[in-house]
């Protein structure tokens, strides 16, 4: 026996992360594979993820005939709602939340944590083990699901299946991190997991867009419908006219897609760091008398290091989003579309009633009201326009204040009433109508003179507009010196009356460059990200400077204290 043990003492020991990584990784890999394939319970979930396989044949055999794109639209619906909405979260919940949970509950994790391992490594390696198996398992399952649909319909739309496989991979990666954390947080994570999947991810998401943007599936599904073309339609192969994916909020720009990816990445990082914090037993405590403790602030920083990193990352991301992303988006845009239609009669109007026509009813223009803050600059421009009678008119964009507009508007109403009362159905080219128009032109000219700024144009269609940020587009620019409410009016100021109904359609846009909003979000973003950087900096500082020397000093102090106390008692 003694000899046998002597053999054990001869082996050389070397401690490096490389030596630790292999065995832990192999251990978890074998565990995951045995959980996935050798546990009877797991097959319930394995069957769940392969559930769409039976959906294909059922659909195919239950109807007499179906168009291929209808069939694949249904496939897309099943995948988009059921697969990404419920099945993948449920499956990953089962696998990922048991990763630490059963080890913690039956305490077999002790065999690892009583060895020289940083607990952070345990979290990372475990997650890597998960990444090696589960996402690929899900990809294969997704492919099988497609094949079950595709074999009956001639294996079309393979690009859609590729898209689903890619997004399923991302979903497995993100949900894995979240459920690993949930598994560590709760003794029985299944209940919280079910709440999260069904209530939070599924039910809440259908209540409001704001709630939806707080779910993970929103970001994942957005990647399915990305990208969007210039007409605002999705170019994703999974989107068919009128299916669920088509009705889903679409991602606008690559920048937004990038932001969404960053959100998912931050979710993963935060989940991992918090898992580390929980596994390590770090306690977020009030730094009460932290400076006076042996070891001082450094000890306190060491204690909360993982939280420093977590909150640092969150603050940094929020700050960067608020600053550059919100702040750099110079302005907020608004556009309004209006049709100006001039007709010889107004069928809606009944003479003798006191119903006054609104701005758009009178057929001469349209108005939008805008309140801007001090120092905000405002740009106001025509975007698109069309006319049934080319080059027969002149129009103007007018910026004015309330009193000018009210005066003009009321005069127009009176004029219009007068005309309507005298000859309700006056011919388009009658003398009376011409007089009315002439009077209106005079009023309009007067209005233009009273306005703050104006832009007159006569080209239709207007093709000068490229983008809101393009400063060469003819526009009205104005910087407000105080908080003001502006009236932005698009107005016909001259046209040749012809015996046919004419219409002019306009689409015009505003750009309000909210300087305060921009500065505010920049400053706030800067402060928040600086705070985040500070927190991460503290964590790095504590990593770099904290040493066990402090612990030893602390220990010696404690011993001295204890002996002093004993001496006093003895005396």
């Amino acid at each position, binding site marked *: *026996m*003694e000899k046998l043990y002597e053999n*054990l003492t001869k082996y050389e020991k070397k401690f490096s992360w490389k030596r630790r990584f292999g*065995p832990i990784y192999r251990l978890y890999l074998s565990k995951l594979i045995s959980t996935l394939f050798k546990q009877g319970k797991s097959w319930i979930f394995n069957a769940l993820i392969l559930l769409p396989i039976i959906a294909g044949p059922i659909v195919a055999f239950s109807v007499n005939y179906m168009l291929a794109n209808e069939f694949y639209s249904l496939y897309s619906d099943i995948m988009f709602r059921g697969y990404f909405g419920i099945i993948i979260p449920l499956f990953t919940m089962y696998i990922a939340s048991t990763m630490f949970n059963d080890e913690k509950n039956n305490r077999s994790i002790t*065999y690892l944590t*009583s*060895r020289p391992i940083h*607990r952070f490594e345990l979290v990372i390696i475990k997650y890597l083990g998960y990444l090696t198996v589960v996402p690929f398992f899900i990809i294969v399952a997704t492919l099988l699901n497609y094949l079950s649909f595709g074999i009956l319909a001639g294996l079309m739309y393979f690009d859609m299946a590729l898209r689903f496989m890619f997004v399923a991979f991302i979903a497995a990666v993100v949900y894995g991190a979240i459920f690993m954390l949930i598994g560590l947080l709760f003794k029985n994570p299944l209940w919280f997991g079910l709440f999260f999947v069904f209530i939070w991810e599924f039910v809440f998401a259908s209540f409001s867009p704001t709630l939806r943007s707080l779910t993970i599936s929103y970001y994942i599904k957005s990647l399915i419908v990305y990208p969007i073309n210039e007409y605002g339609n999705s170019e994703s192969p999974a989107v068919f006219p009128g299916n669920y994916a088509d009705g889903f909020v679409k991602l606008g720009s690559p920048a937004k897609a990038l932001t969404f990816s960053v959100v998912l990445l931050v979710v993963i990082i935060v989940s991992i760091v918090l898992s580390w914090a929980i596994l390590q037993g770090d306690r977020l405590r009030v730094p009460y008398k932290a400076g006076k403790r042996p070891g001082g602030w450094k000890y306190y920083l060491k204690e909360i290091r993982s939280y420093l990193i977590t909150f640092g990352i969150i603050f940094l991301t929020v700050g960067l989003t608020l600053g550059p992303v919100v702040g750099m988006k110079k302005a907020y845009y608004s556009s309004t579309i209006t049709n100006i239609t001039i007709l010889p009669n107004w069928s809606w109007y009944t003479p003798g009633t006191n119903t006054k026509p609104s701005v758009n009813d009178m057929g001469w223009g349209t108005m939008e009201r805008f309140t801007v803050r001090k120092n905000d600059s405002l740009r106001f421009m025509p975007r698109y326009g069309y006319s049934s009678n080319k080059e027969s008119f002149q129009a103007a964009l007018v910026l004015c204040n309330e009193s000018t507009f009210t005066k003009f508007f009321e005069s127009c109403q009176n004029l219009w009433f007068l005309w309507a009362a005298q000859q309700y159905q006056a011919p388009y080219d009658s003398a009376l109508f011409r007089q009315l128009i002439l009077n209106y032109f005079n009023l309009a000219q007067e209005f233009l003179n009273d306005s703050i700024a104006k832009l007159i144009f006569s080209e239709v269609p207007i093709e000068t507009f490229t983008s809101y940020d393009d400063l060469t587009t003819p526009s009205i620019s104005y910087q407000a010196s105080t908080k003001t409410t502006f009236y932005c009016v698009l107005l016909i100021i001259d046209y040749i009356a012809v015996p046919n109904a004419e219409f002019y359609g306009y689409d015009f846009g505003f750009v309000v460059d909210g300087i305060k909003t921009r500065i505010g979000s920049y400053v706030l973003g800067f402060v928040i990200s600086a705070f985040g950087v500070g927190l991460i900096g503290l964590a790095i500082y504590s990593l770099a400077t904290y040493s066990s020397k402090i612990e030893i000093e602390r220990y010696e102090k404690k011993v001295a204290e*204890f002996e002093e106390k004993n001496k006093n008692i003895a005396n």
Partner: protein
Amino acid sequence: MKEYFIETYDLNKWYKEVMALNKITVKIDRGIVGLLGPNGAGKSTFLNIATAQLRQSSGEIYVEGSEVWNNPEILKRFGFCPEQEILFEWMTGRKFVRELAQISGLSREAANKAAVEAIKLVGLTEAMDRAIKGYSKGMRQRIKIAQAIVHDPEILFLDEPLQSTDPLVRRELVQLIQKLGRDFGKNILISSHILHEVERITNKILLIYSGRAIAQGSISEIRELMDKIPFTIRIKTPDRKRLATILLDYDFVLNVAPDIENFEYINIRTNNSNAFYKLIQELAVESKVKILEMATLDAGLEAIFDYLTKRK
């Protein structure tokens, strides 16, 4: 400054409202030390805190002068045989020990050899290529010990290592632990609720009872200590005066007084409960003293006493 094996200062551990450890301040010398106490006394909690599996609610613990929590440096020198029966069920015994040895710093080849040798040491060679799932309790116990010693640690923590092993294996394990302590100079903390088991391995014990460190030292010292502690025993009897006069003749009876609350009872203080109980039996039979009721007022201490003396 003398370096102890384990030092604790006001070590407390609560599980919500249950206090598992209550202000434990001890200094344990190097060598093999038995951690003794009945079930639920806090032995496992103490071991788990000493091996950084649990974190104390307050107070300090140092093993060989180092803090243990969140300190992988000290874990390099540890071997721990925990209490829990569930291992990594899907692995074979050999693989289990091998991977753990490798985590503790051995190279792959060395770990492979060491695992086989460690398993041989605990006498499990025949079953080492079977999945742990199919192991019996005793086999699990042995594989746990194998993983604790495979990397030749300087410090060993063994939580009930002899539990559910058959006498033959037990004898071998006892020899092994003794050898490790005496010939290889390991520091070993071994917990048990059975005194004679520990007695065979070591003479030094730390006694824990309901979260408190009651006594520390060699077993004979503790026995003596227990004898010196006076007990109060309450007796209900109609012959109070007669009993009192008889009892006061004996030198191990320190004091006899009527109970303040109820005069039907008398309280007797003694420093030798064994002799006292013997005497009472004799009195009841020979002198026909009627004893209606008898109870001890120091229930906890009696339990320990009971525990230390009668379980032999």
